[in-house]
Structure formats: C-alpha cells, structure tokens
C-alpha cells in the first residue's frame, strides 16, 4: 500500500523512536466541482449511516458593523421556505427519513448538517442544494424567528454569568477585529435585524464557490462525487464573492483588566486571554507549539504544570487551566486561568499562576511529561477514527479557515515533532500587552 501519510510516519519514527506509529486511516478524498464547490469524502463503512455537512466560508466575523448576529440569524432562517419547499419542510423531510439535522455558526463559518441512512444521501443533497440559492423569506417566518433568537441569547448568555463574562473578555481582547463580537450578536443589534438584511447577506455569501461539502460515513467517494455533480453542479458560481478581509488588530500596547460582578457567581475565578498565532496553511509549527504548550500547562487535571503546582503542591487553587484555539482565519488566542481555593484571593491566585508560568519558562519542559503528552496525542489519532462525524467536523472547520485536508492530516505529526525549545519560545512570546485578564466575582466577594 502506498500511503503518503505512512511514509511521513516512518520518517517521524526515526526521530521519536519510542513512539509507535500514528494510526493511519484512509485519508479523505478531495474533489472540486466546476463551479468551485469543494467536495470531501471520508469513508467509514462500519455502520450504514452518513453525515452530510455543507460549510460556508462566512461567519459572525463577517457580520457588517452594526448588524452583529446576522450570520447566525440567517442560519436559523435557512430552515424556512424556499421556492419549492414550505416552511419547516426541510427538517420534517429529514425526520421522515429517520434523520437528524441541525446547523451551527462560528466566527469564520456557518455549517449545516444531516445524519441519515446512507441511501438517503441524494435527497439530502437535493434539499441542501435547493436552499443554497432558493431561500424565500416572508415576514411571517423571519419575524417570529428573530424572537426565537432573542430567547436563545437570553437562554445562553442571560442566564449564565460565565457566558456573559466570556463575551466581555472577547470584546476586550479584540480591539479592532470583529472576533470581539458575540456570534449570536448584541441584543440591541439583533432587535434591528430583518429578513431583508438576511437576504442581502445570503445573496452575497451563499454560493457553491464559497462552500465546502463534506460527506462522511458509509459511502463510496465516486458515488458521492456523482451525486454532488448532479445536485450542486448546476448551481452557477458567484463571480463577485467578497474577499475575506476583516479589520485586523493594531499593535496592542496596553494590558486590559476586567472586573465583573454578578450575583449568580458561585466561586470567583481569574481568566486571561492572550492573542496568539493561528494555524496557517503550510505553516503550522508555531501553532503546534502553542497547542503543546497548552496541553503541558493545563490539559491534565492532575499532572499538568499548573494543576500540579497550584492545586496539588501549593493548595492555592481549586483548579487551573490553559487552552489554545488556533483554528481561525485571522487570529488565535491562548487562555490561562485559576479558581482560587477558599481563603485565597484572586490576586494571590493570579500572582501564583504567573509565578508558575515564569518558572516553567525558566526550568524548561519536563521530558517525561512531554513523552506522555506525545503518547496521548498518538493515541488520539486512533480514538478519533471512531467517529466519522467528528472527523468531518474538525476537517470542515479547518478547511473553512483556509487550511487544506493535507494541513489537517499533517497537523498531528507536526504536533508530535514540536521541540522543547519551540514550546518555551511560544511561552515566552505570550505578551501581557496583548492580553486581557478578567476577574469574575459575586456581588459580595
């Protein structure tokens, strides 16, 4: 078998001799239709089911200024009527075929998916292709749906201090980039959205040459391609797709600090966000170093650097965490945070967190810990094969932010090859001037 991934793996083994090879499943197969629509097939024939996902390269960060929430609002409205289908017919047809469907919106993409028995794929494609161009929004549909979204916002953000705090943190981290806006939108702007605004947004961004089709499950790639050509192929490309250029961040010169009080907070905590690099096509090493850094600092609730020092050895925190989000079109971010133990102030906990980070940079990476992390990453390459759906999801997210299927295949091996020096360099580059530190406290704390 000539599997290019296998060759990379063999080369890798020479470097990391103690690791057994990365588990290589069949790589996804990639096609492009004449109208520019990308088609990716992940074959997994263990069960007779399939997931179809259509990802549009447009998300909340593309909402025009003053119209935050429009990408997400449109996602809801995509379940309304088209020229040939009645309001609600899409989902009821999926349901009548024993399937489940839904959709989600992020800053960089909007995705629609159905899970069905694999022999129903053609019907799903027919309907998904239909609503790519034939959506028809009547006021009797878009008006109550706007209320649904206000209820959704209230349910998600209005009833959770953590969510509201997270929204404030992002808004402070990004000084110019629309990543600082909530996906669902600010309430006062959602209230002003209309079907007409949604239709304009739809016409501008929804087109085959701005979409990625991912089909994963019990299918054959050539059959999927034939179906895709039949249903999506006839839709003409849009010639004047807007370029994906959003406002970018200026040099950030001043560390930001937030203090939020909310009566619903049970236990106060500190969270910090830093700007960090994102994954870039053909250039993922720096991002990989941040990924490993986050894993070493905070992934394990027992043996990670922060938890071991702060929760176990010093007893200063109830928990401590670190994270990295690099799958983004324009900018990634890195997270650190601590929840103080009883009797420890937020300031003491934050200082201790910073001390641990400084000591980590000083002493360097523990070789045994790095080895364990690599073992887990390698194991993850096996475990993740268990779900065609989650493979489809992570590949779709990567492609929607400009990475290629090859970048996604390479990612795990790049992570495995990150060196201790690269990790420390990443840690050193975390810049407080490009960060926001927030304290979330109760009213009486």
């Amino acid at each position, binding site marked *: 078998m000539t599997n290019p991934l296998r060759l990379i793996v063999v080369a890798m083994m020479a470097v990391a001799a103690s690791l057994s090879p990365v588990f290589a499943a069949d790589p996804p197969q990639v096609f492009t239709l004449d109208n520019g629509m990308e088609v990716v097939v992940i074959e997994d024939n263990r*069960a007779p089911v399939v997931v179809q996902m259509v990802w549009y390269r447009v998300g909340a960060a593309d909402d025009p200024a003053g119209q935050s929430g429009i990408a997400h609002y449109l996602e809801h409205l995509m379940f309304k009527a088209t020229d040939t289908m009645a*309001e609600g017919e899409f*989902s009821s047809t999926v349901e009548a075929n024993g399937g489940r469907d839904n959709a989600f919106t992020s800053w960089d993409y909007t995705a629609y998916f159905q899970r069905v028995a694999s022999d129903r794929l053609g019907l799903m494609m027919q309907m998904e292709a239909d609503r790519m161009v034939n959506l028809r929004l009547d006021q009797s549909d878009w008006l109550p749906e706007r209320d649904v979204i206000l209820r959704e916002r209230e*349910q998600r953000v209005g009833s959770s201090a953590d969510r509201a705090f997270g929204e404030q943190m992002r808004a402070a981290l990004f000084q110019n980039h629309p990543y600082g806006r909530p996906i669902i939108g600010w309430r006062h702007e959602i209230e002003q959205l209309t079907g007409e605004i949604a239709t304009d947004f739809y016409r501008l961004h929804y087109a085959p040459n701005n979409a990625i089709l991912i089909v994963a499950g019990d299918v054959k790639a050539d059959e999927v391609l034939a179906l895709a050509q039949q249903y999506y192929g006839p839709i003409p490309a849009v010639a004047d797709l807007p370029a994906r250029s959003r406002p970018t961040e200026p040099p950030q010169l001043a560390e930001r600090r937030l203090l939020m009080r909310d*009566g619903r907070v*049970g236990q106060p905590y500190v969270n910090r966000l830093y700007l960090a690099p994102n994954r870039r096509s053909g250039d993922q090493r720096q991002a990989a170093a941040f990924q490993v850094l986050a894993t070493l600092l905070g992934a394990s609730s027992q*043996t990670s650097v922060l938890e071991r020092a702060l929760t176990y050895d010093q007893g200063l925190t109830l928990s401590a965490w670190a994270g990295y989000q690099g799958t983004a079109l324009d900018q990634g971010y890195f997270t650190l945070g601590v929840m103080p133990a009883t009797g420890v102030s937020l300031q003491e906990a934050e200082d201790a967190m910073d001390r641990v980070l400084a000591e980590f940079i000083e002493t360097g990476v523990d070789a045994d810990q790095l080895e364990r992390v690599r*073992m887990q990453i390698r194991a993850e390459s*096996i475990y993740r094969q*268990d779900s065609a759906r989650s493979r489809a999801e992570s590949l779709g997210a990567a492609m929607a932010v400009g990475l290629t299927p090859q970048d996604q295949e390479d990612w795990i091996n790049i992570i495995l090859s990150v060196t201790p020096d690269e990790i420390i360099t990443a840690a050193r580059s975390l810049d407080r001037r490009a960060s926001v530190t927030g304290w979330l406290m109760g009213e009486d704390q």
Partner: protein
Amino acid sequence: MKLLLSVLSLVALLATPVAAIEIQPVTSPEGRQAWLVEEGSIPFVSIQVIFTGGSSLDPEGKAGAMSLMTALLNEGAGDLDSQAYATALESLAGTISFEAGRDQVSMTIRALTENRDQVIDLAMLALTQARLDDDSIDRVRAQMIASQEREARNPNSIARRAFAELGFAGHPYATPTGGTPESIAGLTSEDVRNAYRAAFTGDLVYVGAAGDISAQDLGAIVDRIVGALPDSNSTLPDYRSFNAPPGITVIDFPAPQSVIQFGHAGMRWDDDDFMTAYVINSAFGGGGFNSSLMQELREQRGLTYGVYTGLASNRFGDSFVGSFSTANETVVQAIDLVRAQFEWLANGGMTQEDLDRIQTYLTGAYALRFDGNGSIAQILASMQFQGYPLNYINIRNDLIRAITLDDVRRVSARLAQPDALQFVVVGQPVGLD
C-alpha cells in the same frame, strides 16, 4: 439543553438500533455474562460497566456522597498516590472514568489494544484499593462545593431541583445526584468509604464492550473485575411516582427570562404501555423541530428557543417532565399553551399522520445511534441494566411499527394529565403571583 439530556438519556437508550451490529453474548470462564460487539478495524476497545445503586444509595442527609466518592477514584490507588496514578494512566493513553448517576455508578474504560491489560490493572486498583486519602478528600470536596455553588445559582438547576423536591419529597430522587453545597460540606472520610463499599458490588453489575477485543479476552476481564467484588448488602429505595400537587410555583430569580420546568407522574419503565408512551412523547415533545410543543411555542410564536419533554422512567421512580425558557412577559401565555397541548394530547389529538411520521422517524433513525465503540458499549451495558433481552435489538422496530392509533389514544389519555401539571417558574414572570 443540557438539563434535559440526563432525563432523556434513559429514554434515548430505548431507541436502540436493530440490525447492523451483532451482539455477541459472552459467558466468562466463571459463568458471568457480558455483551460484546467485536469490531477490530480500529485497535482499541471501549468497556462500560454499570453497578446498580448510584446516588440512590446516599444515606439520608448525605446527598452527594456517591458523587464525591467517584470523583476520588482517579486520586490514587494501592501504592500509587494521586500524581503517580494519573501519570501511569497518561503514559498508557487510556481512559478510566467513573460517574455516579441516579440509579447506577458507571465505569467507562477506553484502552489501546497494545496496552489494554495494563489499563485494566489500573482500573482494578481503583475498584478494589482506592486510597481515598484525607488530603484528596479535602481538595475534591472543595472542588465539588464550588461546582454545586454554581449549580445553586443556575436557573435551570434551580428549576429542576425545586421540581424534584416537590414531586419526590422523602425519596432519594428529591435530592440532586451531586448533593448540595451544604450536604457535601458535611461529608466525612467515613461517608466516602461507606459509599465506596456500597457502590462496587458483584451481584448487580452489567458489562458491555465494543471494539478490538475477543470474547475470550472479555470473559477474562469480566471475571477479574466482577470476581473481585463482594455481594451487595445495600437496601435499594422503594419505587415512587412523581406526586406534587398541581399548580404553579414561582421562585424569584433576577433575569429577563424565566426557566420553566413542568410535568406530572410518568410511567414505569416496565409498564406494558411504555413503548407506546415513548412513541407518544417523541411526537409530543421529544426533541426535533416538528414536535407538537416545538411547533406551538417556537415555530408558530417564537416564544422559546426550545421546549422538550421526556419520560424520566428511572429504576426507582418516574415522572413525565418538560422544560423551556421564555421572556418574563410571555410566561403566562406559554404555560397556557403547554396546558392546552396536554389537553389536546389527553383528548386524543394525535392523528394517524402524527403517528406515521414518528414511527418512520424512530424506526429509520436507529442506525444513527451506532456512534462508535464508546456509544455501543454504553448501550449494551444499559440494555442489560434495564432488563432488555438480547434479541430486543432485532424486534424493537417491529414493536414500534405495531403501535396503532387506538393504542396511542388509549395511552395518551393515561399519560397526559393536564389537571395534574405542576409548573416551577424560576424568574420574574409577569402576571403570576
């Protein structure tokens, strides 16, 4: 939506797929049973073990003891302290996790084929020689109090808990599985050890496995795990149906939107009409944009982001329960609509078209539940826990198809009791005193 998932999980398991997978009954060398789906294409296995009891065994005033105990099981065992145990498990890249549920403690194991035996060794240590050291107890108890403090301020949890207290007073189901900040603060090292002894017994235990493992290897593992455990001497709780008085209970909570939990008594899981009730609930409020309640409240009027109902038919008690959120100004309208839908259901409102639609959906969607080894192992263990026969998976769709509109109308009249509805409203609803 998380709040309802736990309620619905038992129900969801009933919709276990037919065909497509082949369950292999395994008898161990020492005569114990397990169910297996062998699938060797990916070199790992998922094993799910269910121990009957769970937080229902928490003694009076000790709510959360079982949860605290399970949270301590990755904090060291045998000669390995907390750090050493975690390090060993991470080096193997395996997963061993424990979760205390209402009626069971479940153990989930995920292990690569290459080092499966070593992962099982660590699981055995946790099951039989957990350290439960005082410093670990202090630390984990503080973490649990923090998370319960958060729950205690979450309107969804407040609604769910108040609803349970109203309907299950004096029964273990009245208290949350994870306890309250106060009950957890009072738990001692002895309480934790008692919970440990009560939880892991060898007589009411169910094992499911899926992935890269042979029947022979699984049999040996079952003997190792189950053979090492004593028999149970705990008293299981009495069975109870939800029995709150009808009405509306308002709990003040400062937010522009109210969270509403509603319902009344449900149906026993072993009732002859349970399958029909399950089908009725699926069409009425069991998820999906087309359920009766979703159409009335969300699609037609935009009153809520989502409304769901479920048959919480647990081992020791039942309720028919639902929830939604709506603006404080529309709480009265939404409650009236829910009540009207219950009346519609009780009076035989469901049509042949509704029944056809839901039967097609339920029988067609079976395969979607084969979501990999982890899900399959979990389904296999749960089916045994709930007493389903091995062939259930092959007859389940026929049972659903056999349900007639007459069945639906007869059982709807039994299931839906509009006059018995209790609504717990957490928020500042307008027009309710």
